[in-house]
């Protein structure tokens, strides 16, 4: 299908507002009489609360109130379970324990809230919070993923007799049988550790209860305004129409901002209703390190059985996933790990044993990639190791195992995070992989350049990793599109925007259908007053699920436009064209009518609207896919390691992305750039260091290193296109893709660069320090 607007590099329509500081963020919301909140959080990761003394805090002038769990009475309740385990899986153990608004009895991770101070200014509120006296009885902390399962371990939740949060097994084929046939069986243990999402904008909330209107408005830097609205109404005893949740511009989400309810999200609206006043809180960076969800800690024991030619005969995996102190997000993240531990390969026998544990660490929910980087890391590491042991070209081993293009849709026979069978809808992996090798100059590098640079004493290495990403899962999203009497288009969808360029991309889809300029479309996202059905922005699904809903609604408006215009212009619909905001008769350009005139005629002030029709040129449509759209990509890089400092220089970075139809390549490239930058952080800079008491030792951006512009390479992006067969636009998600393969690419490239040392990397994140230690350990052992 040829498009006029879809697929064009349209500049972002939201940028002028963002770049000139005119865009509304929660921090910009200021209301008359607004009060401010500050929290007293526990420094201890695990401790009994013996007593709380708020008397001194209350005496500070300007303090309006101090609230603890006791004040909430019957309104005190743990957050709702967001995601249950897949109902179709058998023998699942799942112990649901959810976060609480204010601590009652026992602190389960550092940063949990004991009390909240409401005051006339943030300064006063912060000062008063420091005057709260809490007597704690510190308890030993649960930290280690394996020790916590030993008998007699300290328990995170006293009402459970275990720290086991979940256990399940997924099985495909017959791994043990395959193992008997194998020429080579390799087994390795992998450690994957935690990082922060570290969005530029921290979380923020303004809650405003209007007593006279009996209406609550909440501005919330969230990825999921509609579920927050629904949940708040239920918790606060209100009708849903009494609650409006607005997620205005949000400065980065990356997953943690979809974790409803954060304690603050529940407590502030509750207090606003008590006081009848607006209350504001913007999370500071240190709070963010303790109170905003994190991800990626897992320990894997993996076995891979192969033929001597390099065919994967089967994979067996036993892994432990750390969910932190609570598990509101169910099994989404580790199920994603299971779904991606076979990569894009034709693996007939797979046995995966998953254990999830509670620890006294910050809650774990998806962070960009959401379990996928771990899966890709282990399968790609295993293939590198297998190729070495079999003395085969690692790239050839990958080519040998790719799911062939005629095998799609490819049924993986296990259950994925969306509770559907894991089916890869489409793909064409080998050409994209070959393209990546060509872009990176793989053969020339190995044959000529690397030997030449090594002779000069340089430690240069190459890494290339293919990956899959399941994207665009259900349940559904919706959109409303209407033609205004001015001829301009207004549209709204439920998903919120945290930098994904929805206002541009969705406008392109509408412009394509209705023959208007992109700038004539005004798109509202993330405001429940504008659109109140939907789930949110997650799982790389905006362009797929909301995009196709927008397309369906705009397509329906197009039909209404054609029907009315056909009547007025007395011309059959098939002879009409929509362009430049007009409907024209194809071969008679002077016979036309504008969309604005049609909109007025469709909404008459007198006369009668025909029975069975609706007024206006407006439509609301929904899209819900049965299963997701599987994207594919390849990342490659050439890096140089400084053997003294272990600092790296990325000499070249290339990606090939196949996200099906691109609505806007500029936006896709932006997503990849951002993803790669996050991936580089995950691979070589960002790691949250918890000590044996579950104390975070690098809770500031001085110690927790995020790659800056100096660490970012130039990224060459190539687009492949295998359209998704199960949605009309053919789109696949790409929001998380950039981050997924990077740690695996790093590991491969570092091993290759340091080939003298015969290093085997089995962990991530690395860092210059850690790499130095690994090399020292290697030296000490030899």
């Amino acid at each position: 299908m040829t498009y006029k607007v879809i697929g064009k590099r349209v500049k972002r329509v939201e940028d002028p507002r963002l770049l000139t500081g005119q865009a509304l963020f929660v921090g910009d919301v200021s209301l008359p009489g607004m009060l401010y909140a500050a929290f007293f959080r526990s420094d201890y990761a695990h401790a009994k609360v013996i007593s709380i003394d708020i008397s001194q805090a209350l005496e500070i002038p300007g303090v309006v109130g101090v609230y603890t769990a006791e004040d909430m009475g019957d309104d005190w309740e743990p957050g709702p379970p967001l995601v249950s385990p897949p109902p179709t899986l058998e023998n699942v153990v799942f112990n649901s324990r959810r976060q609480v608004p204010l601590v009652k009895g026992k602190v389960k991770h550092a940063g949990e809230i004991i009390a909240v101070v409401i005051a006339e200014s943030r300064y006063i509120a912060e000062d008063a919070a420091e005057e709260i006296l809490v007597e704690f009885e510190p308890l030993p902390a649960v930290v280690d993923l394996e020790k916590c399962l030993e008998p007699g371990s300290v328990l995170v939740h006293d009402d459970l007799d275990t720290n086991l949060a979940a256990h399940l097994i997924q099985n495909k084929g017959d791994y043990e049988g395959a193992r008997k046939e194998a020429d080579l069986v390799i087994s390795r243990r992998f450690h994957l550790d935690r990082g922060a999402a570290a969005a530029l904008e921290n979380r923020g909330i303004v809650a405003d209860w209007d007593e006279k209107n009996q209406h609550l408005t909440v501005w919330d830097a969230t990825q999921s305004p509609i579920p927050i609205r629904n949940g708040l109404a239920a918790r606060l005893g209100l009708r849903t129409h009494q609650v409006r949740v607005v997620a205005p511009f949000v400065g980065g989400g990356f997953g943690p901002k979809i974790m409803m309810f954060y304690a603050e999200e529940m407590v502030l609206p509750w207090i606003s209703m008590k006081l009848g006043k607006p209350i504001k809180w913007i999370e500071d960076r240190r709070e963010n390190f303790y109170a905003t969800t994190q991800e990626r800690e897992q320990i894997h024991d993996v076995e891979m059985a192969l033929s001597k030619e390099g065919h994967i005969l089967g994979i067996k995996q036993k892994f432990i996933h750390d969910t932190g102190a609570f598990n509101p997000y169910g099994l989404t993240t580790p199920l994603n790990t299971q779904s991606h531990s076979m990569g894009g390969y034709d693996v007939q026998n797979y046995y995966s044993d998953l254990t999830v544990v509670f620890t006294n660490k910050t809650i774990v929910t998806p962070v960009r990639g959401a379990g996928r980087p771990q899966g890709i890391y282990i399968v790609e590491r295993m293939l590198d190791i297998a190729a070495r042991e079999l003395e085969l070209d690692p790239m050839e081993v990958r080519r040998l195992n790719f799911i062939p293009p005629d095998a799609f849709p490819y049924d993986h026979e296990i259950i994925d995070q969306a509770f559907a069978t894991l089916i890869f809808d489409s793909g064409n992996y080998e050409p994209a992989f070959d393209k990546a090798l060509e872009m990176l100059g793989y053969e020339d590098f190995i044959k000529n350049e690397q030997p030449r640079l090594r002779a000069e004493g340089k430690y240069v290495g190459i890494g290339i990793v293919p990956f899959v990403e399941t994207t665009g899962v259900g349940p559904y999203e919706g959109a409303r599109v209407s033609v205004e009497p001015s001829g301009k288009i207004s549209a709204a969808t439920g998903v919120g925007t945290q930098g994904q360029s929805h206002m541009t991309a969705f406008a392109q889809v509408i412009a394509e259908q209705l023959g208007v300029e992109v700038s004539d479309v005004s798109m509202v996202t993330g405001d429940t007053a504008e659109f109140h059905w939907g789930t949110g922005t997650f799982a790389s699904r905006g362009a797929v699920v909301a995009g196709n809903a927008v397309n369906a609604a705009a397509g329906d408006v197009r039909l209404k436009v054609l029907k009315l215009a056909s009547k007025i212009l007395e011309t059959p619909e098939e002879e009409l064209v929509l362009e430049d905001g007009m409907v024209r008769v194809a071969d008679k350009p002077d016979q036309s009518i504008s969309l604005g005139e049609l909109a007025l005629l469709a909404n008459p002030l007198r006369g009668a609207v025909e029975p069975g029709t609706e007024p206006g040129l407006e439509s609301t449509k929904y899209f819900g896919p049965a299963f997701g759209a599987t994207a594919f990509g390849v990342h490659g890089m050439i890096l140089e390691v400084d053997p003294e400092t272990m600092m790296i220089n990325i000499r070249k970075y290339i990606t090939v992305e196949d996200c099906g139809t691109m609505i806007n390549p500029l936006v896709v490239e932006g997503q990849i750039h951002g993803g790669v930058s996050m991936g580089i952080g995950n691979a070589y800079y960002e790691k949250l260091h918890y000590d044996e008491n579950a104390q975070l030792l690098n809770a500031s951006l001085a110690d927790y290193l995020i790659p800056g512009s100096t660490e970012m390479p130039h990224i060459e992006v190539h687009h492949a296109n295998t359209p998704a067969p199960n949605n009309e636009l053919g789109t696949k998600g790409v929001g998380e893709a950039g981050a997924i393969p990077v740690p695996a690419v790093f590991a491969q490239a570092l091993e290759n660069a340091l080939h003298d040392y015969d290093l085997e990397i089995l962990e991530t994140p690395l860092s210059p320090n850690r790499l130095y230690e690994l090399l020292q350990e290697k030296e000490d052992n030899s």
Partner: protein
Amino acid sequence: MKVEGEHIFKGTQKQVWDLFRDTEVMATALPGTEKMEAVGENVYEAVMNVRVGPVAGKFSGNLVISNENFPETYTMTVDGRGKPGFLKGVGDVILSDQGDGSTLMKYTGEVQIGGKLAGVGQRLIDTVSKSIINQAFDILDQNLVERTAAEAEGREAEYQGASEKDYAATVAKDLVGGVLSAPWVKKLKGK
């Protein structure tokens, strides 16, 4: 976090033991100590201002002495909390006679830190705690001399306290020293 170290005091085991068990001496020796007083048999309450890089604030807590085996060993347990976080530690002190009138003091212990002290101050705490201890030793050396002299002269001892300025200078020196002694710097300098 493990802490350990040693120091030679120019005095007998008994003199050093008495020195360490004199709250007035200890209060003057530890920089930032606002208050240290006995509240029971071998139980002391202390208030101390601590500054670790960007983390500063007042700690208050208990110090308990146990397992006393005069004049050789005892165990010290500290438990403090304040706005910058918390600190909890157990350590053993061993005094051994060197045979030349001097006493070797060895200490080993485990310290837990939490809150801002851990989250923001962790990078500096190792050096800062060493600085505090080293400076304390310097002052204790001087105070031991003063104490011994005063005893001999039958007068009241006048102890010299730690100044904030000296403390800051010690921390700065130790931080720079820590960087310069890192293996990779040594390697670079060797080139």
